[in-house]
């Protein structure tokens, strides 16, 4: 159809792909925390992101609060909501050996959230229009989206903070410890439930941050979240479960794959290739691109 594209196009694909992928990344970081501590595939993460987006929209429409500014409200509310969700829904299931129970509660929560949103806000597409909606900026001589760049920065900041928290703070280490052996952790004076609740709170707060990015960038509807959950899971596995930075990197890699496949192969194959790469990585490096293997008898 046309000749081999000039290098400019590769730059453009890479930059925009990476920015788009960071959205999956930030969702994946939240999942990674919840997955890491509770071994829970939290399928409702996407629905939580959309819920946050509706919340951002309500703040904007009713009180005129700028969506990016609303981070200072959304993140604390996300923390509180995550805490409550854990205490109310997952606390009991967390001690059960059968992890399908938590998985199903997450599914139930997803059904509930999606349909409550439909009841409250209707099922149609909703959007937030601000002065900077759909405005572009130049980075490295390439034109790209302002809101996506902001989303990328949010993802970067969120991931960085979570990493510092897990690696450097004792409470963060306690989160990882409890994720491994809840009984042993309790013998250290670590309250397992408090730790899980922290992980959940941070995870949902990240969903809130992602919700800000989504609300400013995309139109959305109550059911738009599931695809985010799926893509975030792919990103998570690409990066390596338990590796927070890996989750973000996984998201960015996924974004790049999608951009390149869309350009060179065609839009209808992006998902197949993305999942194919995901399977291949799982197969040849099950611990993810950034995880480290170990096994002991």
């Amino acid at each position, binding site marked *: 159809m046309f000749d081999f594209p000039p290098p400019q196009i590769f730059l453009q694909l890479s930059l925009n*792909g990476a920015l788009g992928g960071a959205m999956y990344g930030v969702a994946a970081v939240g999942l990674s925390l919840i997955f890491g501590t509770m071994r829970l595939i939290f399928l409702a993460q996407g629905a939580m992101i959309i819920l946050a987006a509706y919340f951002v929209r309500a703040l904007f429409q009713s009180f005129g609060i700028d969506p990016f500014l609303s981070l200072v409200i959304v993140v604390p509310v996300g923390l509180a909501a995550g805490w409550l969700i854990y205490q109310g829904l997952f606390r009991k299931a967390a001690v059960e050996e059968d992890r399908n129970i938590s998985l199903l509660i997450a599914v139930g929560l997803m059904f509930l959230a999606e349909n409550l949103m*439909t009841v409250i806000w209707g099922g149609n597409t*909703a959007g937030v229009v601000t002065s900077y909606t759909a405005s572009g900026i130049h980075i490295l001589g390439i034109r790209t989206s302002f809101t996506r760049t902001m989303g990328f920065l949010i993802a970067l900041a969120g991931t960085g903070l979570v990493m510092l928290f897990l690696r450097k703070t004792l409470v963060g280490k306690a989160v990882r410890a409890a994720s491994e052996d809840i009984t042993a952790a309790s013998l250290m004076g670590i309250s397992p439930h408090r730790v899980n609740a922290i992980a959940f709170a941070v995870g949902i707060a990240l969903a809130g941050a992602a919700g800000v990015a989504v609300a400013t960038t995309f139109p959305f509807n109550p059911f738009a979240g599931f695809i985010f959950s799926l893509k975030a899971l792919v990103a998570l596995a690409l990066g390596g479960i338990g590796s927070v930075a890996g989750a973000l990197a996984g998201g960015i890699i996924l974004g790049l794959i999608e951009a390149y496949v869309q350009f060179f192969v065609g839009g209808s194959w992006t998902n197949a290739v993305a999942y194919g790469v995901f399977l291949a990585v799982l197969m040849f490096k099950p611990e993810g691109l950034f995880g480290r293997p170990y096994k002991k008898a």
Partner: protein
Amino acid sequence: ADGEIVVGAPISLTGPLAGDGKEQEWAYQQAVADINKAGGIEIGGKKLPVKLVVADDESSESKVAAALENLIKVQKVDILLSTHSGPMNIAGAIVAEKYKKFYMITTCFPFEWQPLKLKYSALFFFHPGPGSEVPFEIWQKLPPEQRPKNPALVTEDSPDGKGFGAGFVAAAEKYGYKFAVNDPWAIGATDDSALITKLQAANVDAMLVFGSPADTITLIRQMKELGFSVPYFHGWKGTWTGEFHDALGADSDYVLTDGFWSESFPYKGAKELGERYDKEFKKDSVTVGAFYANAQVLFQAIERAGSTDADKVHDAIFNKEFKDTVVGDLKFDETGFALIPSVATQWWQGRHQLIYPNGDWTYKPAPAWDKR
């Protein structure tokens, strides 16, 4: 049932299509209220009131069947009105066929439905054949320098998208155009930058886009972010709703859109129905008329057949004409299909301006983003 006619309808009350489903439910309710106000449907010299029973299809193809089982077996309905998307209506029509209940359909592409040769359902809608010729007809009337040189086709990866896409390709050939880019589009794609880069690289100057509102809005926003604009942007399905304008504001200007109903149609009851909707929801709708007409046809057919028996209703619709619905006069052919004309409007300051057929609005090509 005795003393009344029970009409069942699977409707997307929940799930991703619930927004459209609510409009459909509203339109059916209006039609039923109106006929009951007129005393009901006359059968054998007696006027019987109509009762509407709905069941949720959960916006899912795989749940339509269960919804219909429920309507037919539990609610014991006499006859059926359709839900509102192509694939769901195929699934619904097949169940109706199994249980020999007449299923009156709107919104499903004839190319999906006709090959099934169903006996107990009828459909009125636009055909992608003539429907997809609309943009070319519009171009034909443009001054030569405004006609696109490098048009592109972007269609979503769904039965409707593929079917309509095939129609566009055929029409392009007929009118002597060639698509510089013809890309299928994954539903729910969040990042279209690669697609836009591709369109840009191919110097595209016109786009025909078939996709959901969310996907189309995302595409246009990202086109603006990346500074890419085409003079002629024509959308199907995603561009006609009020949400489209709400989510884009002034950026929706210049976009052309299809539609299968407009309250400004010169048909009996159209304006009145539009006003009623406006009064209740404070916005306009481009769908309720079609749904309302669907019920109008069915009620008339029952009256003509003097029964809700599927075979008799079949005979009353196939090869027959219906006058003065809110979508105008409908003439059903021997397959039970009636064609309605396609419409094209251009968004201008939040309103649909009728371009095709024979509207009085002149097409405005879109300038570059920074020149608007």
